[in-house]
Each structure stands twice: as structure tokens, then as C-alpha cells.
């Protein structure tokens, strides 16, 4: 479901961006080209108008490529914006002064779309687009002042074209931005909902797992109590050992706190449970909840030797995990008589270092990973 929503949001971003390019393209081919070709004779310098049309096309192509690739305007737009405004000036210059506000002067109504494409979805798109459109309007106004085209009709024409153009260009950009922002909000919301679902599922699993283990302990306690009620000797070594083992399991359940099981801890818990089913007395201080994210290969190398030591324990084992943001150390001390040990540290390809030590009938296996 999240993927669907993310795809919709991506499509919104992509197609609204390409929409700007399509509008600019249609406008430029349908209107600008027609006017340039059909009104060739009306220009003072038609070649300059044609060159301006080509430069406009080149800028539009560059912007379209960027929009297609990243749904965003080009990274460096200053030069392109200056070139776009130069197109505006070139068309004004190419026209006869009397045609300044006539049909032939297509530049000032059209370059605004280049501004829309260039500033599209950039971090400061509002400022950049408004500055560009203001510069375009300013250039035209300056041309009117220079040519003395300041009669009421001309000013009215100027205002109609400028206001109309800016309304369309800014309106389209702002509308699409709102659409995109809402789509992104939907993605964020969907992700949050999915995270909540995952958390709930994980909590449910932990809860179910704890209930299962509580049940197992209850069965063990019930059996012990029955034995005691039937006359088992509390001083008997085996009875006392079973009582201690049950108390340790219960204590571990009480101190477990993590809400989301860590993969490394989950494996250790599973092996501890298995060892306890074999009536091994396992002590394991709380593992803590701040283990760093580990690559699978590191996790496997960290666990392999300690788990082997635990699996082969004869009657007792101690399992510890120490972790910092850049280090994880897993250790097992067990009365494992069969584990082959290396006298020198073993360096795994993942960077994990495993050391072994035998002392007083116990083996100490310690694997350590340190961030490179």
C-alpha cells in the first residue's frame, strides 16, 4: 500500500513538472513559431527573432531534460535565466518600435514559461520565479519607456498581458506545488501508519512469545511444586537447581524491555531457551536496547562461536552482550568440554574477532565487532 501511495506521489511530481514543459512547448511552437514565420516581414530584424526562438528552444530542452530526470529545475539556473531574459530583449529589439505591444513581440508573454520550468520544485522556487517574472515585466516596461509607448491603450495592453501571463504561470506552479505537497503528506502519513502497524505486530509477537514462555515456566513451577508437595527434599541438589533455573528464567522475563526485537538478541534468546530446555542453568544479564544496526554477515560471525559454546554447555552458561554505537561484543562462558578452541584470535572476513580461553573447567568465547 505504501508503495502505491509513493508511486502516486512520484507521478504527481513528475507529470506536473512535465505539464509545465508541455504548456511551454505548445505555446512556443503553436504561437511563437507561427508568429515568427508568418510575420517574418513585419520584424525589423527577423533573423534576431529566429535566433531568439532557437535559444528559447534550447533553454526549454535543457529544462525539460532536468524535469524529466529529477522532477526539478536545473541545478544552476542563473545563466539560463539570464539567457531567457536575453531572448525577451532580443525579440523586443527584433520588432519594429511600433509593434512593441503587437502580435509579433512574442517574447515577453512567453519567456515566463521558461521561468516556470527553470524554478520548478527548487528549494527557493517562489522567490526565484517571482524575481524572474518581475524582471520580464520590468524589461518590457523599460522598452515601453525607451520607445515612448506610454499611451493609455498601450499601458492597458501591457497590464492585460502581464497580469494574464503571470496569473497563469504562477497559478499553475503554485497549484501543482500544493498538489505535490498533499501527495507527499499522504506518503508520510502512510509510512507512519505502516510503522505503527509494524510496531503493533512486533509488540503482539513479543507478547505472544512472553506468554508462551510464562506458560512454560508455569508448567515447570507447577511440576516443582507438585514434587515438593509429594515430599521432594528442598535440600536435594537437583530440586534446588531446578528452582534456581526457574527463578532465573522468570527474572529474565521481568527485565526484558525491548519493544522491537533485535535480530542478534532474538537468536541469542532462542538459543538460551533451547539450552534451558536441556536443563542448562543460563544466566544472561539484560541485553539492553541500544544495539547498532549490523550487517547480516557481521551478526552471523558475532553469533557463530558463542552460540556453539552455549549449545554445547554441559550444565551452566553465562551469556553477555556489550554494545556501544561502534562496538558489539558477545560472550559466552560455559562448561563446554568439547568446543575446539583456538589459541590465537580468529579474524573473520567481516571484521569480527573471536577469542577463546579455557580456565577452571570453563570456556570463555568472546566475539567482538568494531566499526571500521
Amino acid at each position, binding site marked *: 500500500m505504501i508503495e502505491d501511495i509513493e508511486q502516486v506521489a512520484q507521478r504527481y511530481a513528475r507529470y506536473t513538472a512535465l505539464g509545465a514543459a508541455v504548456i511551454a512547448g505548445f505555446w512556443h511552437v503553436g504561437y511563437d513559431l507561427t508568429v515568427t514565420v508568418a510575420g517574418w516581414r513585419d520584424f525589423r530584424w527577423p533573423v534576431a527573432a529566429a535566433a531568439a526562438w532557437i535559444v528559447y528552444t534550447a533553454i526549454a530542452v535543457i529544462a525539460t531534460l532536468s524535469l524529466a530526470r529529477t522532477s526539478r529545475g536545473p541545478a544552476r539556473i542563473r545563466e539560463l535565466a539570464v539567457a531567457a531574459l536575453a531572448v525577451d530583449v532580443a525579440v523586443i529589439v527584433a520588432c519594429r518600435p511600433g509593434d512593441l505591444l503587437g502580435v509579433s513581440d512574442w517574447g515577453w508573454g512567453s519567456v515566463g514559461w521558461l521561468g516556470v520550468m527553470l524554478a520548478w520544485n527548487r528549494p527557493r522556487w517562489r522567490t526565484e520565479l517571482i524575481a524572474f517574472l518581475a524582471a520580464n515585466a520590468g524589461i518590457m516596461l523599460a522598452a515601453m519607456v525607451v520607445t515612448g509607448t506610454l499611451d493609455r491603450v498601450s499601458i492597458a495592453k501591457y497590464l492585460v498581458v502581464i497580469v494574464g501571463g503571470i496569473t497563469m504561470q504562477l497559478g499553475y506552479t503554485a497549484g501543482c506545488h500544493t498538489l505535490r505537497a498533499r501527495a507527499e503528506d499522504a506518503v508520510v502519513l502512510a509510512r507512519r501508519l505502516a510503522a505503527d502497524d509494524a510496531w503493533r505486530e512486533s509488540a503482539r509477537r513479543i507478547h505472544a512469545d512472553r506468554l508462551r514462555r510464562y506458560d512454560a515456566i508455569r508448567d515447570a513451577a507447577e511440576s516443582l511444586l507438585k514434587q515438593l508437595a509429594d515430599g521432594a527434599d528442598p535440600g536435594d541438589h537437583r530440586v534446588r537447581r531446578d528452582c534456581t533455573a526457574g527463578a532465573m528464567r522468570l527474572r529474565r522475563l521481568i527485565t526484558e524491555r525491548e519493544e522491537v526485537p533485535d535480530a542478534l538478541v532474538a537468536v541469542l534468546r532462542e538459543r538460551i531457551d533451547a539450552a534451558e530446555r536441556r536443563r542448562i542453568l543460563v544466566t544472561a544479564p539484560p541485553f539492553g536496547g541500544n544495539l547498532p544496526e549490523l550487517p547480516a554477515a557481521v551478526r552471523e560471525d558475532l553469533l557463530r562461536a558463542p552460540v556453539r559454546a552455549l549449545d554445547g554447555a554441559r550444565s551452566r552458561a553465562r551469556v553477555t552482550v556489550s554494545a556501544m554505537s561502534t562496538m558489539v*561484543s558477545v560472550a559466552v562462558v560455559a562448561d563446554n568440554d568439547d568446543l575446539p578452541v583456538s589459541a590465537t584470535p580468529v579474524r573473520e572476513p567481516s571484521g569480527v574477532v573471536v577469542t577463546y580461553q579455557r580456565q577452571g573447567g570453563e570456556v570463555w568465547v568472546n566475539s567482538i565487532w568494531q566499526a571500521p
Partner: protein
Amino acid sequence: MGQQHLAGPVTGPVTVALVEDHQVVVDGVRSWFSPPGPVELVAQGPTIESVLGTAADVLLLDLNLNGTMVVGRVAELCQGGQRVIVFSEHEEPETVRAVLDAGASAFIGKGRATRDSCLETIMDVAADRPNVTPPMAQAIATDERPHRPQLSDKERAALLFWFQSMSKASVAARMGIKERTVRQYIDRARIKYAAAGRPAPTKEKLLICAIQDGLIRPDEVTVYTSLAARSGEGPGAGAGS
């Protein structure tokens, strides 16, 4: 109360008050301390209030009393100069650091405690000597907070190995050094930790004794006052500085 180290040899058994709400644990601890022995249980109760006012060298405190964690009350207990040893199954490094920061002298993990290790810790604490139990070693070694003490690589390694191995002798073998040197690394780390923490009279005693025993020099405790001054937690009564 508790001036053996400064005033001379201990003349009688070390007195202990126990706060614990589980009768089975109380009975276990009582059997550990049964006379004749170096430690005498002089008071016991299921709440902190039930033993307050009892003169005891050491207060042995369970953290979870009737379902409520009393971590927040450790500072108040230590503030009067009472030596507090926390005795709990909540051995998570964050919890251990919280009680040590509050001024507790030691933390004994219920999961691994034995009579001998427990007595050793109580005797050390009563004499204001540094004592580092495995859960404390883990908590000090993995501290990554900004104001943590600066431990040397060997001090940190000794702490981690002490937490994860079977004995200090095995740590010595692993590091290729003498057991006495391992103890020195671990004790120095504990002293540094006390020096870098919040002020508490029990920590001052520990630092004074560490200086008397030559474990650290007075000028090595300067971090204590500078940190207290920086955090604006009142005048830093920097022991030995």
C-alpha cells in the same frame, strides 16, 4: 559511621541494613550474613522508610519495591553520606549508570551474585575502597554520554572483559598482564567515573581513599570540579582538588 579506612582498622563487623520486599531474598541474604561473619544485618524492611534512621555502615537496596522503581530516591539516600549498594536484577547499563551517578557506591546484580562476591563488595564499600561488580564494569565501559570520563583503551578493555569473562584471572590471561594490574585498571576506571559524576558525599569518600591508597593523584580529580561548574549544578566540592 563508615570511617574505617580513614580512622584505622575495622573493630567489629560491618553493619548492613537491607531494603527488600521479597521474603525469599531477605532469607537468602540473612543466611549469607549469619554470624560469625564479617557482616551483620542490623535492620531489614520492605520500604526505604522502614529502615531509615538505622545506623548502618551500608544500606543494601533493592530497586524494585512493590512494583515501583526507586532509582529516583538513591540520590536522596546518598546525600546524607549513607553508603548505598543497589541490589537488583535490573542490570541494564542505563539503570546502573543512573544509580552510580546518584551516588550509589556499588551495584550488585542479583543474577550473578554469590555470597563471597556480595561480602567482598560490602566490605570494600564500607571501607570506601573502589569495588567494581560486572554490571558496573559494563555500565562504565559502554558509557557514551558527553560528560563520560575519559578511559584509556586498557581500562575500557579490562572493564568489558571483566563483565564478559569468568574471573579477573581470565582477564589477566586475555590481556597478557598480571591480575594486580587488571584490578588497577578496573579500580582506576571506577575512580574516574566517580570523579566525573555529580557530587555526592559517598563519592567524595571514595575519592579521598583512592588518593590515600595512591590509586590516583589529587590533581587527577580536577575534572570533577570543572564538570560541576560547567553544568551549573551548584558549588563543586571537588574532593582532593
